[in-house]
């Protein structure tokens, strides 16, 4: 395969390199030189990637503020590593750490979830019964996996009856690898796909299909397997050049695909999956089924006044925010970061790295009574792994424009270097992000 043309590096390239390495983020808006002195009460709902990063950032930007982080989960999951676990490259232990390791000094951690958001009263109620009034709120609760929207599907089925899902936590990812190993021996029909909702890391189901094809080839059993990919849309990826590249890869790998197919039901006993199609329901037999559930904002968010009331993000209750400033238009003291934010694209950890400095800077400006200057451009990135050892570093913005950080790497060519980033570099960058040091 021909390699990319190597252009000489100039200073601009080096700066872009730093951005890609997580050293810098493409954020519009000036950084504040001194922390803001304020007695403000800041509540952060959700102690995942976005919540922890926001807590670390705000604890550096605010002096005297009371920062409360509300989230019940004590184990932290490095979700971008789930595909590595599900393809047998990493052990599941590599993607699990302790939430406590990332909590910035001075931040109070309430080990409960938010039961209710009451934005009119400027407070949240936690599942342990405590109430938390705030002057500023960051909603960072991520999204929920709506298994029940697929009839007959239950996450406890993952690892059994040929059912797999890389989305079902570290255990689900490890179970996916076990199911795949069995499938590599038996062969048969493998069904993959994506849900009709907004979803985190939309590249992951594609990565899965490509990675598992590669594993079958390594095992010498690809000839015994039939691979299918189903999407509810009329493309394989929402960014046109990436869609074209995936088409090319699927053709080269003999992966069949179909548009306008939404998984609606599973019958594990009969090993059949039913899809909604324009021609009516279609039931297919499978030996391996990779389920990616519909995703939505967590229930307390969905049921609050914070959710979009109309438009494309209303049905699943994503938080209404201005897509540039990440500020709520009706409750200006509220900001949303990460998967729960009702913005186009932006549901990756790489997006959190770019959103968090924007939301943090704007929240501080809000508390200081200043103009909000920082803006998020929709930056979303996903190393699209095409086989163990190779990946494409796909990055794009709101407009679906490719925004390659390294101008000398073709974002649509499979290379070892993006794979090395995925395998070795992105984990440390992610942890540095949680610690607020980048």
């Amino acid at each position, binding site marked *: 395969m021909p390699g990319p043309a190597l252009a000489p590096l100039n200073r601009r390239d080096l*700066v872009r390199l730093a951005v890609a390495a997580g*050293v810098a983020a493409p954020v519009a808006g000036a950084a504040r030189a001194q922390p803001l002195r304020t007695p403000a009460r800041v509540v952060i709902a959700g102690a995942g990637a976005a919540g922890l990063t926001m807590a670390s950032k705000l604890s550096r930007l605010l002096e005297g503020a009371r920062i409360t982080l509300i989230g019940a989960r004590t184990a932290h999951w490095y979700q971008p590593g789930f595909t590595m676990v599900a393809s047998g490259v990493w052990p599941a232990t590599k993607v699990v750490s302790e939430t406590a390791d990332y909590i910035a000094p001075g931040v109070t951690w309430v080990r409960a979830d938010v039961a209710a958001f009451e934005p009119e009263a400027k407070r949240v109620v936690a599942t342990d019964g405590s109430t938390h009034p705030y002057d500023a709120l960051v909603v960072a609760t991520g999204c929920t996996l709506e298994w029940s929207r697929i009839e007959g599907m239950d996450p406890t089925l993952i690892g059994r009856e040929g059912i797999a899902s890389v989305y079902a936590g570290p255990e689900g990812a490890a179970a996916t690898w076990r199911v795949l190993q069995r499938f590599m021996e038996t062969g048969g029909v493998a069904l993959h796909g994506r849900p009709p909702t907004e979803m985190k890391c939309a590249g992951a189901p594609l990565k899965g299909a490509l990675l598992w094809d590669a594993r079958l080839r390594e095992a010498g059993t690809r000839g015994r397997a039939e691979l299918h990919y189903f999407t509810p849309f009329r493309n394989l990826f929402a960014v046109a050049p990436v869609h074209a590249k995936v088409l090319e890869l699927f053709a080269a790998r003999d992966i069949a695909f179909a548009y306008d197919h939404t998984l609606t039901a599973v019958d594990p006993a009969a090993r059949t999956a039913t899809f909604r199609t324009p021609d009516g329901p279609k039931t297919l037999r499978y030996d391996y089924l990779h389920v990616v559930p519909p995703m939505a904002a967590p229930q307390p968010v969905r049921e609050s006044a914070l959710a979009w009331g109309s438009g494309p993000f209303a049905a699943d209750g994503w938080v209404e925010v201005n897509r540039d400033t990440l500020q709520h238009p009706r409750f200006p003291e509220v900001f949303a970061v990460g998967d729960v934010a009702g913005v186009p694209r932006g549901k990756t950890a790489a997006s959190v790295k770019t959103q968090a400095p924007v939301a943090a800077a704007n929240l501080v400006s809000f508390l200081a009574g200043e103009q909000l200057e920082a803006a998020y451009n929709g930056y979303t990135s996903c190393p699209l792994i095409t086989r163990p050892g190779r990946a494409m570093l796909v990055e794009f913005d709101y407009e679906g424009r490719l925004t390659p950080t390294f101008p*000398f790497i073709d974002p649509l060519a499979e290379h*070892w270097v993006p794979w090395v980033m995925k395998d*070795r*570099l992105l*984990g440390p960058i992610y942890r540095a992000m949680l610690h607020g040091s980048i």
Partner: protein
Amino acid sequence: MELFAPRALAAILGEMFGGLLWVAAATAALALALCLLALRRGVRWRLALRGAAAFGALVAAGVLAALPGFTNATHADLAGALDWLIWGVVGLGVGLAAALAVLPMLALALGERADAPARRPQRGAASSLR
């Protein structure tokens, strides 16, 4: 956020290598101290350099052979100029670092040059010139 902030780079390296960074820093400091000592003693640099270069080349060859495997990949996964460039730079860089680390030790082990300046006797010690 500051672009290219050295603190950010340090944070990423810290997350990547953890305590190993301190081991590397201690090794570099030790190599530097031994280098200064060797310079004062007037050692046989040329011979030491040859030995260190051979050692570095061996390390580089080992790294170049093992590097893809270290990243859960194989040499067959390297595709195009950039991949090969990074692979080469890492291999040669580690080889060079290994050579530099071993150089002063080798120099001291090989002993002083015949024309090395005589060391000044320490105060209070018996002098053979006396």
